[in-house]
């Protein structure tokens, strides 16, 4: 017994020691790799006579960015150019996500329609769009469709909206000097609407009836907003219509050709994928569930609202998150069609300053932050709707 304890297992046979050893070797390899990469970068930068640092972001950018969301002047620094680009990216991503979800839901439901024509149209849409690369589609929408719309002088007009190859010009309500007073009223109206929402929700719960307390709250808010509008005196918002100037329209707001084409391309493309998710989600709900709901005497719309969708959402939401992430990241293809998203601004900055490494690091941080934010929101939503396990 005593003899046996003396002959200990050699360490290369001892699985516990080996495990630790492998980990140590791996960490050392990672450190060496990191060191080699950093050292190589430093050597290359030295050879080119370049320095690494983020100070240049303070310098004057001296290029122009078309006004898509924030105003930008050539005297503004590079970091502000990146901010403007990021806001432009968020703008197209956010609107794109909303519209793609709506389009995808409709197309997904249409695909399951018992109407042959509707389901075929949805099928053709999905099969064509998701099998053509997005970059090709964007170039098509921009250079073949949007830029070939009529010239600004001969723009298509409908209800004060002008569509031309310069963009979509919309009437827009701009706040007047009495807007701040109205804003206070609106704040009060919002609080009342929230109270109404909670009251209505509890009422429905007690009565054990389905319904949308949100609609009630919205109605309350709109009635109050309309009433206070007249109390404020001069109109708090002025409606402004686009008017043709020398080259272009003034007044109202404009969705530039580049923005419209990018948004259109992203929505159509992502919508096709989302429609497949919606279809899969609905089909994942067991047939018996629908039959049981019908047997209980629920109407068609109630079956969808109370039985099918809540169960389908559990299947749809996790992959939907990755579609939202895809859309956001795909918006960087804007470089091909002249929309000033954050990638485009980063490219221009690299080109004018030569600080590629620093700008790319910032760019990656931008996309990472956006993606993590989207994931966070969607994961929170997913937790809310997932099956409650008891």
């Amino acid at each position: 017994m005593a003899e046996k304890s003396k002959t200990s297992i050699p360490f290369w046979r001892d699985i516990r020691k080996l495990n630790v050893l492998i980990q140590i070797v791996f960490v050392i390899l990672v450190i060496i790799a990191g060191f080699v990469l950093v050292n190589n970068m430093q050597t290359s930068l030295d050879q080119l006579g370049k320095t690494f640092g983020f100070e240049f972001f303070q310098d004057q950018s001296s290029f122009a960015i078309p006004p898509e969301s924030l105003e930008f002047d050539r005297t503004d620094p590079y970091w502000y150019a990146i901010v403007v680009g990021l806001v432009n990216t968020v703008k197209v991503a956010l609107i794109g996500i909303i519209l793609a979800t709506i389009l995808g839901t409709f197309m997904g439901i249409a695909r399951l329609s018992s109407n042959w024509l509707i389901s075929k149209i949805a099928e053709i849409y999905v099969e064509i769009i998701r099998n053509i690369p997005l970059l090709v589609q964007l170039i098509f929408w921009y250079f073949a469709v949007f830029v070939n719309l009529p010239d600004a002088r001969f723009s298509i007009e409908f209800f004060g909206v002008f569509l031309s190859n310069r963009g979509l010009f919309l009437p827009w309500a701009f706040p007047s000097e009495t807007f701040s007073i109205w804003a206070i009223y609106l704040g009060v109206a919002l609080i009342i609407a929230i109270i109404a929402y909670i009251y209505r929700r509890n009422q429905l719960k007690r009565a054990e009836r389905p319904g949308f307390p949100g609609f009630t709250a919205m109605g309350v808010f709109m009635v109050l907003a309309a009433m206070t509008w007249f109390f404020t005196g001069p109109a708090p918002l002025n409606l402004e219509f686009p008017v043709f100037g020398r080259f272009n329209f003034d007044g109202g707001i404009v969705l530039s050709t580049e923005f419209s084409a990018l948004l259109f391309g992203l929505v159509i493309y992502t919508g096709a994928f989302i429609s497949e998710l919606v279809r899969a989600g609905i089909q994942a709900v067991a047939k018996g569930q629908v039959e049981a709901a019908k047997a209980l005497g629920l109407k068609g719309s109630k079956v969808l609202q109370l039985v099918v969708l809540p169960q389908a959402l559990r299947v749809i939401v996790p992959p939907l998150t990755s579609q939202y992430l895809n859309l956001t990241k795909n918006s960087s293809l804007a470089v091909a069609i002249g929309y000033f998203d954050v990638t485009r601004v980063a490219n221009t900055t690299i080109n004018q300053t030569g600080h590629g490494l620093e700008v790319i690091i910032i760019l990656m941080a931008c996309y990472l932050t956006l993606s993590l934010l989207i994931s966070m929101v969607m994961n929170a939503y997913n937790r809310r709707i997932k099956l409650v396990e008891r």
Partner: protein
Amino acid sequence: MKRILIVAFAVLLMVPGLLSSAQGGDTLAAVQARGVLNCGVNGQLPGFSGLESDGSFTGFDVDYCHAVAAAVLGDGDAVEFFPLTAPQRFDVLASGEIDLLIRNTTYTVSRDTDLGNNFAPPTFYDGQGFMVRADSGIGSVADLDGASICVGTGTTTELNLADTFAARGINFEPVVFETTDETFAAYDAGRCDAVTTDLSGLASRRTTLGNPSDHNILSEAISKEPLGPVVRHGDDNWYDIVKWTVYATFFAEEAGITSGNVGSFDRSDPEVDRFLGEISTKFGLDAGAFAAAIGAVGNYGEIYDRNVGPLGIAREGGLNASFQNGGLLYAPPFR
């Protein structure tokens, strides 16, 4: 396990070698060992560097690539061309993928310093101009107030546009593209009221528009755009070779040496004799390297007349004439 670790370690040891290849160092030796000059050009600018139907490149910038190849390798055709966009060009040069960049590139302070480049003498003195539709009624830059203007990104013209218009208090909407083709396609489709780049670029690209006669180039130039070959920092001899090959084309014109008579030219003038003979050995090249360059593409006047002349850009009385005719082209002594 052990075997995997050994392989992983071997790969790791190779990484620095793989990543730091072909940077700095001796470009001349690298080019001669390769037997081919890697030359970055535009490729979308007929007259300067355009793609022919048989896949070859022709143009003013392309001829300078041929001239350097002839001087360095003795064969003007030993060139591989790399068509590059404006935003790509300096990164590709810095990475060592090309030896020489001749892509209608404007010589500026920040490109010389921040971007780590060396500029050979300008081969073409230009200025930034505007092209508009003839029926638009735009006659001068001041008329462009409120206009949409198409411009390529990563260019000096993009910066000049913002600077000049701000200084003059003119508003404009920039519509910015990555490549020359995209910029002019959008203009041709009517997305912009005007398109801006160097005047030579406008003349070149006008020939590619749907209906060239429908477009006017405004005579006003809003900037100085000296265009020339570029090499990266860190190899002085290579920079000297490129620089003096450019001067060689100037000198040949001053002396009356052409691609036709270079073989039989009277060498009684000592400077001409040095130029055609041994002076190139000072750069580590063969004797007669500059004669080979002239033999391949001709002197400056020949290069200009062959490529830029057909675009209708007059040379007489302009900046691109030889100093003997009141221009800016002037070769330092070959001694």
